[in-house]
């Protein structure tokens, strides 16, 4: 069933959410050892969900703190850049619409580190759950995707690899 594409978002991203987006790009640049530029974009389609990778970040009590949704390009380019896998391999994944398990593992590690961009005193975020590539997201995650209170959509350019899309939903 198609999901709404941001129609339910009542207002634009808060300063805090925008700041978290900037923090993610800075952290990616540090981690990947190359230029990473994030550009704010209009909401991009989050469906069909099978072509997106969904990463849910929960607090220790199980409540969902935020969800990231990225396209295959972001996943492949970031995952490849982490270990300097040749860009051509990542581009082949983008063409096929599917990342290799190795690149997905790399992406999971990258996003695990990105947790710190959302740190808030007294609210610990557990290592993230990655959905996609045949693994369906939990109902609570799908509800948040369908009706986020806020979202920030970025086009992320990873130098030497390419551009991908990343949405932050809270």
């Amino acid at each position, binding site marked *: 069933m198609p999901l709404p594409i941001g129609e339910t978002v009542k207002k634009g991203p808060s300063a805090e959410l925008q700041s978290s987006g900037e923090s993610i790009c800075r*952290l990616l640049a*540090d*981690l990947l050892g190359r230029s990473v530029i994030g550009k704010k974009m209009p909401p991009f389609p989050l469906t069909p969900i099978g072509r997106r990778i969904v990463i849910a970040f929960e607090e220790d009590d199980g409540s969902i703190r935020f969800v990231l949704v990225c396209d295959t390009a972001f996943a492949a380019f970031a995952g490849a850049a*982490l*270990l300097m896998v040749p860009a051509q391999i990542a581009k082949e994944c983008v063409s096929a619409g599917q990342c290799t398990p190795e690149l997905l*593992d*790399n992406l*999971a*590690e990258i996003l*695990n*580190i990105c*947790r*710190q961009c959302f*740190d808030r005193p007294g609210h*610990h975020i*557990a*290592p993230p759950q990655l959905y996609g590539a045949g693994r369906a997201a939990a109902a609570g995650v799908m509800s948040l995707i369908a009706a986020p209170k806020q979202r920030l959509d970025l086009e992320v350019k990873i130098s030497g690899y390419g551009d991908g899309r990343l949405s932050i939903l809270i």
Partner: protein
Amino acid sequence: MQFLIVDDSKAMRMIVRRTLRQAGFESCEAVEAANGMEALKVLETAAPDLILCDWNMPEMSGLELLKELQNGGNRYKFGFVTSESTPEMLGAAKDAGALFIITKPFTPEKFQETLQGVVGT
């Protein structure tokens, strides 16, 4: 000199190896484990000069590994390389006997500065 790198992410184990080389430890040997249980098995035959360990891992976490080693009369130098950075967790690591905590992402300079005081070069 030998390091034991414990992390459930193969990518991160490779990055830690690479960073050790960049930090001046290029002639050192490194052995790996994917979680605390695996690390205990490795320690049956290896005697690393330093254990560099992640926090969150399946089977046995880094903190559980450190406590297990302490209960068995730990003789290993032990530090965390982790994305955990809350004051509570940093305190728990120090209380359990960790010598240092390096937060991801890290740089070769951070490794050099931290490890020099622990194992020299």
